[in-house]
């Protein structure tokens, strides 16, 4: 069984995001970039399926300029077998990303596609579901457990208030939540080995898809800053302030 894992290059989650002075976007110049944390969990899950003998091949795919090859190499070092870069300089909407991934799904015919539930930059939480709709496949989003069972996969999902388990016909689309697994660190020998693993580059323009943007980003502003408040000396003073000044308790 082939597993396809689409991944995204994003700002490292430890970096403090700053908005550009002209409010056109956030400033990504000279900022540390990394594989999106949820995508890393997706790679780990696919590699574990291979180690368990369920998956036979793990293919990582990323859409972006040459720089995203760095994250594809990371995926290869974590255990993916080969990688595909869909090259574009454009910043694509989730729908256009899903359309490109649909073409890769048609070419590769994976039984399972595992994606991160959202990227920590645009926070859209859309691509997996859109890919499922375009391919007509079932989806198990926000997964905390994935169990392949014959021609089905059981996915336990993190929902408001608890967990829900659904059974999906294979092939299927899964998106990862935080609890699904704890990704490993790539070992030095595996990082070296990853450099020799195959990485195909395909041009986004060659897929014959209209990739024109669906929305315009008018402006990006910093969130309203909170003013630091006061330090109170005693618990009595705190309770008094909460009752009479903030009026949030009675």
């Amino acid at each position, binding site marked *: 069984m082939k597993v396809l894992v689409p991944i995204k290059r994003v700002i490292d989650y430890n970096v403090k995001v700053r908005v550009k002075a002209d409010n056109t976007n956030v400033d990504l110049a000279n900022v540390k970039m990394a594989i999106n944390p949820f995508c890393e969990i997706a790679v780990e899950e696919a590699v574990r399926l291979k180690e368990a003998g369920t998956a036979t091949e793990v293919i990582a795919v990323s859409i972006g300029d040459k720089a995203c090859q760095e994250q594809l190499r990371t995926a290869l070092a974590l255990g993916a077998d080969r990688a595909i870069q869909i090259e574009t300089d454009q910043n694509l909407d989730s729908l256009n990303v899903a359309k490109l991934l649909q073409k890769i799904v048609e070419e590769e015919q994976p039984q399972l596609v595992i994606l991160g539930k959202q990227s*920590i930059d645009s926070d859209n939480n859309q691509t997996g579901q859109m890919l499922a709709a375009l391919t007509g496949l079932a989806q198990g989003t*926000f997964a905390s457990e994935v169990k392949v069972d014959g021609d089905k996969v059981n996915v336990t999902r993190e929902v408001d*208030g*608890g967990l829900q*388990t659904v*059974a999906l*016909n294979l092939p299927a689309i899964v998106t990862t939540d*935080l609890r699904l697994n704890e990704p490993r660190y790539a070992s030095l020998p595996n990082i070296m080995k990853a450099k020799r693993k195959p990485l195909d580059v395909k041009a986004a323009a060659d897929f014959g898809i209209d990739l024109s943007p669906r929305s315009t980003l008018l402006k990006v502003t910093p969130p309203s800053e909170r003013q630091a408040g006061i330090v109170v000396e005693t618990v009595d003073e*705190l309770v008094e302030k909460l009752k009479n000044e903030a009026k949030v308790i009675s």
Partner: protein
Amino acid sequence: MSILVFAEHDNNELKADTLKTVAAAQAIGGDIHLLVAGSNCSTVAEQAAKVNGVSKVLVADNPAYEHQLAENVSLLVTELAADYEHIIATALTTGKNFMPRVAALLDVAQISDIIAVESADTFVRPIYAGNAIATVQSLDSKKVITVRSTGFDAVATDGNAEIVNIDNATDAGTSSHVSDELTVSERPDLGAASVVISGGRGMQNGDNFKLLEGIADKLGAAIGASRAAVDAGFVANDMQVGQTGKIVAPDLYIAVGISGAIQHLAGMKDSKVIVAINKDAEAPIFQVADYGIVGDLFDVLPELEAKL
């Protein structure tokens, strides 16, 4: 111009967040219809009919929609979409799950998690976990939108909308529901609570979270935790407040033994009033707190519980 709003419910009760999502629809402006898709959900339909600003409640009552599986609900909503310019759902697990499917089936983009409406095609939404705020204009003819309910005030419930049953049963046949395992708690849900008290690494271990319980009971609060506390194994991950956990905006947020890492602040800094209890006066949490107490939480918590 008509707007279709998807009602969040569990077949018994309309979720209060739907009232806030209807407020977002009102800000867009137009004739608002509420869709109740479920099974044996007539009580929800009656509650939905009372939501102010709604002119019509569409009820798709069918076993295919019992668990609101994305594969089935997205087909239903896509079929109904022809009559609407805006299709809106709350950005909770159900809406997040099926709405992007609807958008893709309609060949339009989705605008996720809006917190304000500028005009019928321009919306405000947080990006980078709320560390930046984007204003986005949709170029699509149909707008598929999910709403972060903390951004809007609930509409009242003294309306009287017409209830229309729609005869639609779409089962995609690709997925089925197996089981639910819902957390049973006397306390309110983290995302919906008006008061949240969270513990961090300063709690030292899981047992000490009991110190938060007495205060939570007195305030009717939900209990949360920082990622550091979750990573240290003190408490379960579903209690995590932060960029990668739950995003909350209660009236009162009490951070106990939490230093205030970026990733935690991203999950709670929209709270109306923030209280920080920490022994380190230099902790970044004090820069966002309205009221801070510099002191040992093991002294402060019992005293606070006694004095509430």
